[in-house]
Structures are given as C-alpha cells and as structure tokens.
C-alpha cells in the first residue's frame, strides 16, 4: 500500500539550516548535511531543501551543497529557492537533486512549469505555494517567501500549475507556519480534491495528532521543520503514532 510521507524540510541560509516563525525571526538549526543524514537514518521518506533567501538576494542554491547531500543520503530530495530557468534545474539535477521546487518565478512566468516538465518530466517539478487566508475566507498566493501578496486564489494557481505540468504541490499555510497549532486542513483538502497529483501539507505541525489529522484526510504527505530540528518529535515516534492509528507509513 502506498504510504503517507513524512518530509523534514531544511530551510537553508548561507549554507546553514535555519528556522523562523511565520517566515521571520530566523534561528540557526545546524549543518544541513548532518541533519539530512540523521533524518534519513531515522526513516524520513523524503527531504526538502529550500534556499529561503535565494529569491530576494538573487542567489542560486549552491550546487555544491546539493552534491554533498546527494553523496550522503539514499532517499529522494527536492531542492528549491531562486530557481528560474531550465539551466538552473539542470545544474541542480547534475549535482544530484531528484526534484526541484519552484515558487515565485513560476508564478511570475508560468511557462517555466511547462518548460521544466517538458525538459525533465513532471515527476521532477514540485510547485510550492505559500498561501494565507484573507478576510473573504479565501486563500491567496503569496510570493518572495511570503513578503508579497497577490490577488490570485491558491486553488486557481494550484490547478493551473498542475495543468502546466507540476507533478506535486507543496502547500504552505503562512498562517500556520511555525505556529505548531496544526496544519491548514481546509485548504489542503480543497487543493487535494482539485488536483490529481500529491499534495504535501506544510506549516503548523507541532504534535503527532496534527500529522494524524491532516494525513487521515486528503494530504498525501506532511512536511515539518523545527519540530524535527529541535527534537520535539522524532520521526520514528511520529511514525509509530501514525501506524497505531492506521495511517499507512513506511
């Protein structure tokens, strides 16, 4: 049976893992290569590395860091941050990444998704969407690491992204990110019902019950960062918890 995936996320800044709350107040959380190895040994199903400063500071994710990671881990990993061209992706795949995630650049130039899926296959292209609920009750797309709002609804962008060739959606609720108050169940379910590709829920996982809550509904995977980095929940304990509640996990 296909399992639900648990995905630790490593936000990278200047080669270090960092973690903030609601996308600000960054704290150092360690060496990404060491953390990647630990999570792999503990049974993480996949890893995501996001160079969170790349878009704003016009930097490219360091291919050399990706290459070091690839030599240490034997599970799939996704790299994102500042990716804007087929050439950027080729560099990262050649360094050993399995998938790439695109966010702001894809929103500003949606053809990027078509180009990437045509060049490397949909399985390679993760569309990351940062979203926030507005007073009208709808969820909207945010760009540049949550700094720039748009008037495009999250659900519309997700559907268009998949139509253009995105193979997975990484959906981060900015309202929940870092809050440890649980995932955004409503928008995760909505997006998952509208697209026929896996949806990774992100933002808000604080205790095992939160993971159960989102994975027992329509999320295909759940992503979290600080609770793993700061050892609040271990991956084996989380998986045992989920297994006991009949969620299929590896």
């Amino acid at each position, binding site marked *: 049976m296909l399992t639900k*995936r648990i995905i630790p996320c490593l936000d990278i800044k200047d080669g270090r893992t960092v973690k903030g709350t609601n996308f600000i107040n960054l704290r150092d959380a360690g060496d990404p290569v060491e953390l990647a190895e630990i999570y*792999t040994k503990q049974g993480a199903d996949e890893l995501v590395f996001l160079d969170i400063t790349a878009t704003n500071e016009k930097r490219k994710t360091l291919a050399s860091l990706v290459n070091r990671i690839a030599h*240490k881990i*034997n599970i799939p990993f996704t790299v994102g941050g500042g990716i804007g061209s087929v050439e950027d992706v080729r560099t990262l795949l050649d360094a050993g990444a399995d998938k790439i995630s695109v966010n702001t650049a894809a929103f500003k130039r949606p053809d990027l998704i078509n180009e990437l899926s045509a060049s490397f*296959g949909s399985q*390679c292209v993760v569309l990351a969407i940062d979203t926030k609920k507005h007073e009208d009750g709808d969820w909207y797309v945010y760009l540049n690491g949550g700094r720039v709002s748009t008037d495009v609804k999250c659900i519309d962008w997700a559907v268009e992204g998949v139509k253009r060739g995105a193979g997975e959606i990484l959906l981060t609720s900015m309202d929940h990110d870092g809050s440890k108050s649980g995932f955004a169940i409503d928008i995760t379910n909505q997006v998952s019902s509208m697209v026929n590709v*896996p949806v990774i829920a992100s933002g808000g996982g604080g205790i095992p019950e939160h993971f159960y809550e989102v994975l027992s509904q329509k999320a295909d995977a759940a992503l979290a960062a600080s609770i793993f980095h700061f050892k609040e929940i271990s991956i084996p304990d989380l998986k045992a918890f989920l297994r006991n509640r009949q969620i299929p996990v*590896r």
Partner: protein
Amino acid sequence: MNIVIVKYNAGNVKSVEIALERLGASSLLTDDPEKILSADKIIFPGVGEASSAMNYLKQRNLDATILAAKQPLLGICLGMQLMCLHSEENNTQCLGVFNEHVLKFDAAQLHLKTPQIGWNNIYGLSTPLFKGVDENSYCYFVHGYYASSGEQTIATTKYGIEYSAALHQNNFYGVQFHPEKSADIGSKIIQNFIDL
C-alpha cells in the same frame, strides 16, 4: 568491477551514478555500444516518455546493444518498461525481453492519484536480486504506467491493482521502483545486482 550506465535522453541518471559511488562502485555513463557490451554489469535507467526514448535508442543502435547483452543488466523504471513487449504510452513497441505489457494506471477507475509517487511495499520476492530483502519492504516509486504480472515477475506491488515491481529473464532484470532512492533496502538491491 566495470559498471556502465546506458546514456540516453531519459531523465536524471545522476542519482544512479551517485548511488553507485555511495556503495564504493564507480561507473561509466556512456552510449558507446562497444563500451556497454564490454562492461561487467549494465544499468539501464530512465525516467521519461517511452516513444521518444525508444526512438533515441534505435537511432544509436542501443536497442540492439541492450538485447545483445550477456552480462547482468538492470533496467530501472522506464528502463524496465522499455524491456517489455509494448507500452500504452504513445503506443510504443518495446524491446520484448519481458513478456509483459506496459499499461496506464486508470486514475478514474482506480480512484487514485497518478502517477504513483512514494513508498510502496514489494512482495513475492525471488531471485538473488532480492537476497536478504524482507517481504513487504518499502521501495520508492514514481510512475504513471505499470508492467502487468506474469511468469517473469519476481516482485509484486499493489496500487489499485497488482503489477510487476520487478521482472527477470536470464541475465536481464528490471525494477519499477528506484533502488537508488529506496533507502537501505534499495542500496541492498543494488549491491545484490553488483554481486550477481
């Protein structure tokens, strides 16, 4: 040990190369038939679309090269599918090493998301490729098409329906999942292939 990875226009083979490095085995990525046929082991990886991959193989005589291999050869993902009889993906005639057909997951009928992405269990394991691998071990899959099951099936998986997770005929092996990304189980399977 001289391992070659068949180079063609299908997807990201870097991860296979790095997986071999992690196991201390070096490899050569090449589309030169002579180098391929003089290797100890051949890996035929691939992610992508079947018909363009087959056309590319034919243009470079790599179809005949693969069929001429006498040494152990491991097809991975699309590589395995291209070794079947035929693929529904753009109605592609394949190499015919395995007597199975490659079919599309019927997402609507199966009520499943496609492609299948993630970890699924493999069972009914046989041949030395799975030596020391427990029944129902989890492997990492990414695919929208699957090979049917038959006498050459040496591992089975279920995603809505049961299908071949691995196939075997003489020196030819194929796996639908990605051993290079299937954690320690995957490393074990690659090591088993190296040890064949």
